[in-house]
């Protein structure tokens, strides 16, 4: 079993804001991340799949094809977008990095070719903050 990771990146705006709370409560909980006119980040996405190398190619899966798939299914929907406003799979959700990584998993996992197992998504929001998600509950 080998783990193969493809790294992609996107730039996006967002804010952390719970519409069920008052502005004061949002400011109290989310601080400057609740700024009403948004802020933004350079996000880095690490997509790790696992499997045994194919005897004919030596690949777990063609890393270039994996990159193209990640771009088509996820990055193209996120890059240079507003996560709260523009992204169908984040609609109605709090745009935390935790919810974003789960959303990305749910977009990507069903679209992987048969035999390719998604192992982990790592999503970096700033040089000091990142999350990892391994699927499941």
């Amino acid at each position, binding site marked *: 079993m080998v783990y193969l990771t493809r790294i992609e990146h996107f730039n996006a705006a967002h804010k952390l804001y719970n519409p069920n709370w008052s502005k004061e409560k949002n400011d109290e909980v989310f601080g400057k991340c609740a*700024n009403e*006119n*948004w802020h*933004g980040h350079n996000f880095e996405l690490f997509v790790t799949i696992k499997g045994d190398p194919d005897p004919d190619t030596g690949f777990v899966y063609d890393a270039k094809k994996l990159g193209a798939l990640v771009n088509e299914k996820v990055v193209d929907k996120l890059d240079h977008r507003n996560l709260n*406003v523009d992204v169908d799979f984040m609609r109605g959700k709090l745009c935390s990095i935790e919810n974003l990584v789960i959303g990305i998993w749910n977009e990507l996992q069903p679209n992987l070719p048969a035999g390719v197992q998604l192992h982990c998504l790592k999503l970096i929001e700033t040089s000091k903050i990142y999350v990892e998600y391994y699927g499941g509950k």
Partner: protein
Amino acid sequence: MSKRVAVIRKEQFNAAHRLFNPAWDDAKNTEVFGKCALPNYHGHNYDLEVRVTGKPDKNTGYVMDLKELSDLIKQEIINRFDHKNLNLDTEEFKELNPTAENIAVAIYDLLRPHINKKRDLMIRLYETPRNYVEYPA
């Protein structure tokens, strides 16, 4: 005679923006700025390097106290731009397109009056890990 030395302080801020020239229509903006012109903004982690160059002071050995420089950058730049929408929330970019170039010049102009005239100042601003600008050039 002592030698010139550059001292550099690194700071970060996260902000939303879009590139848009109000004198042009949407089609022209999209043609020139591509997805950077998308209406709902996107964002970046900006990495800022402030470089001060001069001869170390005889008494302190410092070109500039880096704690003082850090406090100055926080007060003048980070508090102004961090977790803000550069187009909507800042005076500097009400009428000016917030490209990395223009942001670097604005940062220089904000800091210059607070730094000893005998010292040279240079700004390097990373918009993404792959794109950065320097001013003056």
